[in-house]
């Protein structure tokens, strides 16, 4: 595909809008817990527990990482972060959000199967599950269809810490000046464009 897969608009449009390029969707299971998975009939109990285990190990690899628990909690909420097994290059602690669920596909469908992956909920959008790559998946758990692109394996999040990985953590660095009234203005503009 030579075009964008998912197009999201929130400030441009009259109402927030998410459009998904009409690519193939895939049936997946989204579960908050192993127990929830075991209570449905599409996936077997064995598939549920195997997928949950795989998602937990993926969680360590793909979850966003922080060097401060405060930064992590700002994005994911109080008591929603945990220590990651990784260490910074200087030996410091690394934090990551807790896994809030997982997404799995059927293992019986052969080549169309997918690697199970962990799901998260960020503070600025609590009702939706998101992937480790901050892609919005769904607000509901259970058996559902999602765009095929969402079932791709998320990238590894290294110890290089980048803030604001989920939701924009407000972080203003501006220094206030008390020079109101002294400002001059740009002036004399023409129309332009290219």
């Amino acid at each position: 595909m030579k075009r964008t897969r998912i197009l999201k608009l929130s400030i441009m449009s009259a109402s927030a809008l998410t459009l998904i390029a009409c690519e193939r969707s895939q049936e997946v299971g989204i579960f908050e817990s192993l127990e929830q998975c075991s209570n449905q009939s599409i996936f077997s109990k064995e598939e549920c527990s195997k997928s949950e285990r795989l998602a937990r190990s993926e969680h360590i690899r793909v979850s966003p990482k922080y060097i401060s628990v405060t930064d992590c909690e700002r994005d994911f909420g109080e008591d929603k972060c945990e220590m990651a097994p990784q260490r910074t290059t200087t030996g410091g602690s690394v934090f990551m959000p807790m896994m809030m669920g997982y997404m799995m596909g059927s293992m019986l469908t052969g080549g169309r199967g997918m690697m199970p992956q962990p799901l998260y909920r960020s503070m600025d959008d609590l009702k939706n599950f998101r992937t480790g790559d901050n892609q919005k998946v769904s607000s509901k758990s259970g058996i559902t269809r999602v765009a095929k692109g969402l079932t791709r394996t998320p990238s590894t999040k290294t110890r290089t810490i980048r803030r604001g990985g989920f939701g924009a953590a407000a972080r203003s660095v501006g220094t206030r000046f008390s020079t109101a009234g002294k400002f001059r203005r740009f002036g004399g503009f023409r129309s332009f464009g290219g």
Partner: protein
Amino acid sequence: MRRQIIKEREDWKSQADSLGFNFHSMYGAAYWFEAACYRFTLRQIEDDIEDPCNELEQMCFEIVDQAIQKEEMLLKLSIPENFWDYIRNSWINKEKNLYGRFDLSYNGKSPAKLLEYNADTPTALYESAVFQWIWLEQAIQANIIPSGCDQFNSLHERLVEALKNFGINSKLHLTSCKGYAEDEATVRYLEECAIQAGIETNFIYLEDIGQDDSGVLVDLDDEDISALFKLYPWEWLVKDEFSAGVRNTEIQVIEPAWKMILSNKGLLALLWDNFENHPNLLPAFFPQDRRAADFTKGYVKKPLFSREGANVEIFSCDGLRDSVGGPYGEEGYILQALEPLPVFQSNHTVVGAWMVASQASGLCLREDDTPITKDTSRFVPHVILD
């Protein structure tokens, strides 16, 4: 490459309005035009447009490399001397660039020829990235076009990705001038992309930007501006009263200052000088160059800083044929061999190829009843279908 007459979606105007694309009609005529579309093969897109544009971008970088070391080149480009060091530093420090648009003359058969590079303030981005994309999805659903259609348009994904890579960890201010809906829509759209890249943003009209006693630029809350996206030409900015506030402070500007070398029509002459006979270039010269006398099929006179076709004059062998008025030209001009735009069903069509973070990422097609593309030329969507 073909132009095909198709049905319009019935509700496209109301959709455009609700999506903030409120300049879909300008000066009483449709700017967005979907009663036709252009159809390309994947090979045409990849071999004739995508790859050549990526190559052109690398050639442009070579020109920047040379220009920052040669004062006579900066002089030829009419770049003010007090900005030379600033431009050099922006290049040496590898300041990232966000986007640009190559305008090409391409007919689907012969190599695309570079007409100009809108490297600094290209507009038509929103309609390319969003409205054209939505059109494709809906036109497929409405059976207006076949379901196998694709589009060369990964602009949205690439813009968000590129903005993430800027590493902006302060607030990004975005600015355009008051009273220009088209410019503002482009900036608002980039703000949307920046937000999706996890960047905190603040839109401010250029006129509202302040400066404190030490030269620091500030927003309406008197907060420092440390990163600024400006949809405002560098060559105007350098002449503004506050320009020192950009030059003498640590402010990160997008596009970076080195784009001044590329957004200048003099680039076309410098490219030809360095890569003579490259299949995607047209002969182009500064007016004092004797080789300019050898144009056999006519030429086009382009002011160094012209935008939206303003002040461009076409001279064919039988004398002056077409021109557009405007405010540009004092700064000098170049002469470029005439390569008339291909005509599809009486429309003169220019292919715009979008570059995001120096990677070819999408297309926009503009057509006009006359040979010069202007700000009122129609925007026509495209599809890829083999």
